[in-house]
């Protein structure tokens, strides 16, 4: 029972949320009110104008705008303002009919196909592609040739022709929602399919359908007035399309005739598009989950900065560092100002040293790693601090030089191997491009080097992997490929962000061994981001412990393991010891623990 009431509550919340957000999207709301006023004006046409839209006063033919005819008169002396108002009824009414047919047919078939699938899904998909392959106007011309000039039939056919858009949209969303837990829960608790569809599924598809309807209405209005414009409708009854047809006939005599119906169409279309876009934006701008980020206002930010500057500069104790981070602060824009995720981090990595940056997820360690690489997401802001790489303060370098530091000075090994290879290019293409660009190698040299690298990182058949696409290799191989790519341009500092987290346990140990041997062979420094003290013990010389965007403890690995000072460090170490045996012992039995030397 509680499940049902919960899902009910969340559905109601979603529903209220949509309208609530719409009310707070001024553009969409204005557009909606404008549409409403236009419809109202066409309905109240007899009150607003004394003229008959379809009967002209010949003496007034092509009259210019004035007190008698506010917008002038057409070639038959019919009042343009009256024709606009009365014509709006025809144009908007016809479009509304087509839109209603399209929505009802598209949504119902979409719901059915998405919810029940099976043969109906196959059949409707086929019908959809058939209908969509027919050019709209040609279909309507054929309909007109068949049944004559009957507006409502044309509009019903137009509606059927526009229905596939709604069908596909609804079907896609329903298929996505069908297996959601709350729908399952509702089904288990014995709700009938009809009620599930009404309560849960419709709630999910409603907003996208309204948005699609607004844009489809623009199409329907365009096609409808287009048909009339071609002179294929009853030209005796005023509508915006027939007015344009009349304007086309008099194009050389009175070009201004096309202005007013064009403006009327334009205003309605703008309102519809802005309504659709406004609603879409209102839905997309849902407040994102804040996660572990801490919100701070500008005042708090300044306070934090003052506090940070008081702290001891760890980096000052390491004069020969190849990578030095001082007072680094990173923030993201949030609903109430800036939320700071990194509060004044200091780090220093000596040449050939492996520094572990340890902390739980959300502690800001990946943000720190990305800022070292100058590859933070676009929204991120560096609020303060400096990053010095190989003696150069990066903030002082021009943009081109900053990118040039990457590859042969700084390199990066990401966490998730599969998503970090471009699926559209082969492993070989992705390995050789940097070699050719950064190292200036020829195609042949780059290929030879890439193959040697693949062999070095322990790939059994380098030639085959070289010609493979990312989806054809395993996660462990992909991580080896990424390591090969990272070391390919012989960097001085390697930034490795959880390089083993996404891998199987057996592969993890192999990849760590590989990293350690590469590090010793090349004398690289490594900044290793991890949440795992086992990895730290395995490979790191020194460790920095990070919590809530701050470094809480730094020291040699042996010291920290022996006597952790900060309670958070003790907690992290404790969880390691409780959960499982540190993997270092396994490795230890085979070879000495080089990392702690």
């Amino acid at each position, binding site marked *: 029972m509680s499940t049902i009431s919960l899902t009910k509550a969340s559905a109601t919340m979603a529903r209220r949320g949509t309208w609530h957000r719409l009310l707070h999207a001024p553009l969409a709301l204005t557009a909606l009110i404008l549409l409403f006023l236009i419809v109202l004006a066409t309905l109240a046409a007899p009150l607003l104008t004394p003229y008959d839209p379809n009967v002209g006063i010949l003496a007034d033919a092509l009259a210019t705008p004035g007190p008698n005819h506010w917008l002038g008169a057409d070639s038959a002396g019919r009042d343009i303002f009256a024709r606009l108002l009365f014509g709006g009824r025809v144009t908007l009414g016809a479009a509304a009919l087509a839109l209603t047919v399209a929505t009802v047919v598209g949504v119902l078939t979409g719901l059915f196909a998405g919810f029940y699938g099976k043969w109906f899904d196959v059949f409707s998909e086929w019908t959809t*592609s*058939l209908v969509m*392959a*027919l*050019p*709209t*106007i*040609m*279909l309507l*011309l*054929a*309909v007109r*040739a*068949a*049944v*004559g000039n009957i507006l409502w039939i044309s509009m019903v056919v137009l509606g059927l022709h526009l229905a596939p858009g709604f069908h596909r949209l609804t079907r896609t969303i329903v298929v996505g929602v069908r297996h959601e837990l709350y729908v399952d829960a509702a089904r288990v608790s014995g709700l009938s399919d009809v009620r599930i569809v009404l309560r849960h599924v419709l709630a999910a598809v409603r907003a996208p359908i309204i948005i699609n309807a607004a*844009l489809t209405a*623009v199409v329907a209005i365009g*096609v409808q007035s287009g048909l009339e*414009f*071609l002179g*294929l409708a009853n030209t005796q009854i005023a509508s915006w399309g027939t007015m*344009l047809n009349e*304007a086309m006939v008099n*194009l050389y005599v009175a*070009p201004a005739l*096309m202005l007013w119906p*064009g403006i009327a*169409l*334009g205003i309605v279309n703008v309102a519809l*598009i802005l309504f659709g876009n406004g609603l879409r934006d209102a839905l997309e701008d849902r407040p994102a989950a804040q996660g572990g980020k801490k919100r701070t206002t500008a005042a708090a930010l300044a306070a934090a900065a003052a506090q940070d500057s008081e702290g001891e500069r760890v980096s000052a104790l390491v004069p020969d560092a190849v990578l030095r981070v001082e007072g680094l602060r990173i923030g993201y824009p949030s609903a109430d100002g800036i939320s700071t995720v990194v509060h004044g981090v200091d780090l220093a990595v000596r040449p050939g040293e492996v520094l572990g940056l340890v902390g739980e997820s959300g502690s800001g360690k990946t943000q720190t790693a*990305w800022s070292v*690489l100058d*590859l933070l*997401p676009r929204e991120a802001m560096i609020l303060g601090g400096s990053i010095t790489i190989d003696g150069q303060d990066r903030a002082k370098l021009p943009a*081109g030089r900053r*990118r040039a530091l*990457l*590859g042969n000075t*700084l*390199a*990066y090994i*990401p966490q998730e191997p599969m*998503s*970090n*290879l*471009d*699926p*559209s290019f082969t492993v070989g293409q992705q390995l050789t*491009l*940097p070699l050719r*660009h*950064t190292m200036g190698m020829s195609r042949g040299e780059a290929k030879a080097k890439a193959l040697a690298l693949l062999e070095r990182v322990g790939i059994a058949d380098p030639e085959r992997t070289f010609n493979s*696409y990312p*989806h*054809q290799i395993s996660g462990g191989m992909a991580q080896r490929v990424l390591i090969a*790519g*990272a070391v*390919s*341009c012989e960097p001085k500092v390697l930034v490795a962000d959880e390089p083993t987290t996404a891998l199987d346990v057996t592969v993890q140990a192999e990849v760590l061994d590989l990293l350690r041997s590469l590090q010793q062979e090349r004398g690289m420094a490594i900044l290793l981001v991890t949440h795992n003290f086992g990895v730290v013990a395995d490979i790191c010389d020194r460790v920095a412990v990070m919590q809530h965007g701050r470094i809480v403890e730094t020291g040699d690995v042996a010291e920290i393991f022996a006597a952790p000072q900060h309670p958070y460090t003790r907690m992290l170490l404790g969880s390691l010891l409780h959960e499982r045996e540190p993997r270092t012992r396994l490795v230890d039995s085979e070879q000495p623990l080089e990392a702690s030397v």
Partner: protein
Amino acid sequence: MIHYVARRLGAGVLLVITASFVVYLLMLVNSAHIAQTLLGPDATPDLVARKSVELGLDKPGIVQYWNWLSHAVRGDLGNSWNDGESVGFLILNRIPVTLSIAIGTIVVSVAVSLVIGMAAGVRRGVLDRIVQVISVGGLVFPGFWLALVLVVFIAINLGILPATGYTPFTQDPAGWFLSLVLPVFSLALGAVAGLSQQIRSATIATLEKDYIRTLRSRGLPEWLVLLRHVLRNAAPPTLTIVSLNFIGLMSGAVMIEQIFALPGIGSLAVTSTTSGDIPVVMGTVIIAVIIVVLVNIAVDLVNGWLNPKVRLS
């Protein structure tokens, strides 16, 4: 690969046949008035009846359709009921006009959308706002209304470009180009509106991918990352929109050909439907559907080729 193409072509043929069947039956809903329309209002019932028999309109619909189809598959689309001209010949004469407009519009809109859509997705800020405005502005006025405005201002008032008419490429390439400028512009604006928006969001989505960060970390210059990796990965969804646009263009061409007095498939469709000239109507609809089906298959093939997962399986 060959198997895939064959299957897609097979499905396409089935689609064309079904579409022709639907339209044929539609045309026959009111077949009684066709002979009357052809002969004019003064024709006696006797004459109308004889004309109906002559055209085969007295036979059951399915028989008439079969007759049409069995000739059509052999490439014989019949003769116009209006003037007896070969439908195949009529269409062959007019297809270059419509294809010039459609392909011209696609080329222009893709080129423009690529530049402004990618620029907006990459640089955001003011440029992004401009693209947003274009994407709304391009949809505000129907293409045919825009065409009217262009005719009045550019062709009539300024006299820069020809207002109406078509010059075949073989006759005068420069004149051909000039006669296409206004029609293509009026159709392209709406296409650019949708396409630039699509390219913008595909660019933004691709830029957020993990592999883009990794490629940048290799020290590749930004232009190379954009032109090689972002463009390649943003292409498939964009191409799908292009193929949808093409269907819309077949409709748009009907309007535009009417306004600019271009002798294409669209204007043929308008004249033949008003006179109930079934063979010509069928010819124009079928050729339009065939073009749409071919474009869709081509886009699917290119998309498959762009996506290694599809290409290699």
